[in-house]
C-alpha cells in the first residue's frame, strides 16, 4: 500500500472516519455466474433520490474511496446519473463491473466523469470457459471489447480473475491477455458462501494442490518465498492489531440500504432508510462489537503460529458461526502457504472443543451423566 494511503488510513482510524465504502447499486445482473453469492431478484432497491441522499451523507461522513458495485451496475438506468452525482460530491470512484454493456459512448462518459479505476471480471481467456461460468454466450468478447474501449480513453482497468475448479488452468492465459490489453490482473482463489449462508458454492473452490501452485508461483505472488515462509509466532504488536478494516475505516451498503461491516461480512448493522448513515456508523452495536475485537481476542488464532501472515477474513469467520473464531477457509490457505497447520485446523481435525464455548452446564444434564 502507498505510504500516504497508509497514513490516511491510520488517521481515518484515529478520527473514526469511514474512509472506504462499497455501495452495491443493484443485485440484478445480466450474467449468472456459477459462483455468485447474490440473489439477483430486486427486493426493493433504493431509488435515485435515496442514493443521492446517501451519497450526500457519505460525503459528510468523510468517505473518500467509493466503490460502486453490484450485481451489474449498468443494469440501473440511472447509473450515469448516480455516477455523475458521486463525482460532483468529489468521491474517488472505483467501478466493479462485468463491462458487457460498456461500449465507446459509455467508456467516454466514464472518462469524462473522472473515474479512478474500473475492475472487470474475466474468468478465462477462452470463451468456452468464461462464457460457461457467466452463463452468457458472447460475454468474454464483449468484456474484452469494453476493456479496449476503456483503455483507449486512457482509463485504468484491472482484471479480476477469480479462480475456481472450472478455470484453474487458465490464469496464465488471463495474465497474458492482461499484458496484451495493458491492464493489471489480480487473482483471487477464494469462493465465498452465498450471502444467505448457503455454503454449497464452496465446492467450487480449487483444491490444495492447485492452491499451493498459485501461492508459490513467482511473478504471480510478490515475494512468494517470503510469503510462504513459516512465520514467527504472534507478538504483542500483532495481537493488539485489528483483524481488518471492516467496520473500522470501511463498510458496505446494499442496494436496499442495509449497512454491513463489509460485503463479505453480512452482519446487519443498520439501514439508511431508517437511520442516518453517520448514526449507524458511530452507534450501531454491531459495528461497535466488530470494532472491539483485536487479534488477541480470537479463539485459537491468538496463539496460532500462522497469525502474523494469516489472511483470516472476519466476515468468513462470522459466516462460519463466530466472528471471534477462525475462518477455516483461511486456516487452510495458511496451511497450504506455510506448511504449518493452524491451531484451529488441528483442533477441528482432532474434534477438540476449541470452537465450542460452553458457558454453563444445566444441573439436570450433569446429574444424568454422573
Amino acid at each position, binding site marked *: 500500500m*502507498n505510504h*500516504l*494511503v497508509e*497514513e*490516511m488510513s491510520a*488517521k*481515518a482510524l484515529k*478520527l473514526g*472516519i469511514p*474512509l472506504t465504502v462499497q455501495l452495491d447499486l443493484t443485485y440484478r445482473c445480466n450474467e449468472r455466474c456459477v459462483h455468485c453469492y447474490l440473489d439477483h431478484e430486486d427486493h426493493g432497491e433504493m431509488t435515485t433520490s435515496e442514493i443521492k441522499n446517501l451519497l450526500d451523507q457519505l*460525503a*459528510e461522513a*468523510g*468517505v*473518500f474511496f467509493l466503490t460502486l458495485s453490484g450485481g451489474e451496475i449498468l443494469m440501473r438506468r440511472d447509473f450515469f446519473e448516480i455516477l*455523475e452525482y458521486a*463525482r*460532483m*460530491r*468529489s*468521491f*474517488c*470512484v472505483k467501478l466493479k463491473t462485468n463491462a458487457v454493456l460498456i461500449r465507446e459512448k459509455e467508456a467516454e462518459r466514464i472518462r*469524462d*466523469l*473522472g*473515474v*479512478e*479505476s474500473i475492475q472487470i471480471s474475466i474468468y478465462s481467456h477462452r470463451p468456452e470457459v468464461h462464457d460457461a461460468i457467466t452463463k452468457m454466450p458472447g460475454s468474454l468478447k464483449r468484456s474484452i471489447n469494453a476493456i479496449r474501449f476503456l483503455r483507449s480513453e*486512457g482509463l*485504468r482497468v484491472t482484471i479480476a480473475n477469480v479462480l475456481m475448479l472450472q478455470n484453474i488452468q487458465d490464469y496464465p492465459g488471463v495474465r497474458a491477455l492482461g499484458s496484451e490489453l495493458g491492464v493489471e490482473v489480480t487473482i483471487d482463489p477464494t469462493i465465498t458462501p452465498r450471502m444467505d449462508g448457503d455454503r454449497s458454492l464452496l465446492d467450487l473452490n480449487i483444491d490444495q494442490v492447485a492452491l499451493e501452485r498459485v501461492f508459490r508461483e513467482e511473478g504471480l505472488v510478490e515475494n512468494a518465498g517470503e510469503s510462504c515462509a513459516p512465520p514467527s509466532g504472534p507478538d504483542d504488536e500483532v495481537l493488539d492489531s485489528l483483524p481488518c478494516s471492516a467496520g473500522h475505516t470501511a463498510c458496505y451498503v446494499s442496494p436496499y440500504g442495509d449497512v454491513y461491516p463489509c460485503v463479505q461480512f453480512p452482519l446487519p448493522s443498520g439501514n439508511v432508510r431508517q437511520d442516518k448513515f453517520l448514526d449507524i456508523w458511530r452507534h450501531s452495536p454491531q459495528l461497535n462489537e466488530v470494532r472491539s475485537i483485536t487479534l488477541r481476542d480470537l479463539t485459537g488464532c491468538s496463539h496460532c503460529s500462522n497469525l502474523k501472515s494469516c489472511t483470516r477474513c472476519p466476515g468468513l469467520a462470522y459466516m462460519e458461526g463466530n466472528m471471534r473464531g477462525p475462518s477455516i477457509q483461511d486456516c487452510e490457505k495458511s496451511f497450504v502457504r506455510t506448511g504449518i497447520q493452524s491451531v484451529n485446523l488441528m483442533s477441528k481435525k482432532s474434534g477438540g472443543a476449541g470452537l465450542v464455548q460452553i458457558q454453563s452446564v444445566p444441573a439436570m444434564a450433569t446429574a444424568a451423566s454422573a
Partner: protein
Amino acid sequence: MSEKCYVARSTKIAARMMGDEMMIMLAPDSTLFTLNEVASVIFNAADGTTPLEVIVAERVCSEFDVELEAALKDAEHVVKELAGHGVLLVSDEPITPPLAFAQVAR
C-alpha cells in the same frame, strides 16, 4: 502570475477533508496528495470565478494571522505547484468547469 488570476479545481480529481488536511486523488494516474490547512482553504475556494487575490484576502488572511503580500506569494507558489500536477486549472479569465463540483464536504 497575473494580478487577475483565476483558479478552479480540476474535474479529474477526488477530494475530501480529513481533520485539518485535504486528501486529493488525481484520477488519471491515481496520485495521492495531501494539502495543509491553508492550502485546503485555497483549494476549496478555487471556484474558477473568484480571483486568487480575493481568495487570499478574504479567506486566508481572515482565517490565519498573515499579511496579504506574504500570503499571496505563498498562495501563488501553491497554485503553481498544484496546477503543474493537474489538480488546479489556472487562467487570467474566469473558468467555467464542465461539471459544477460542489464544495468539498468536511
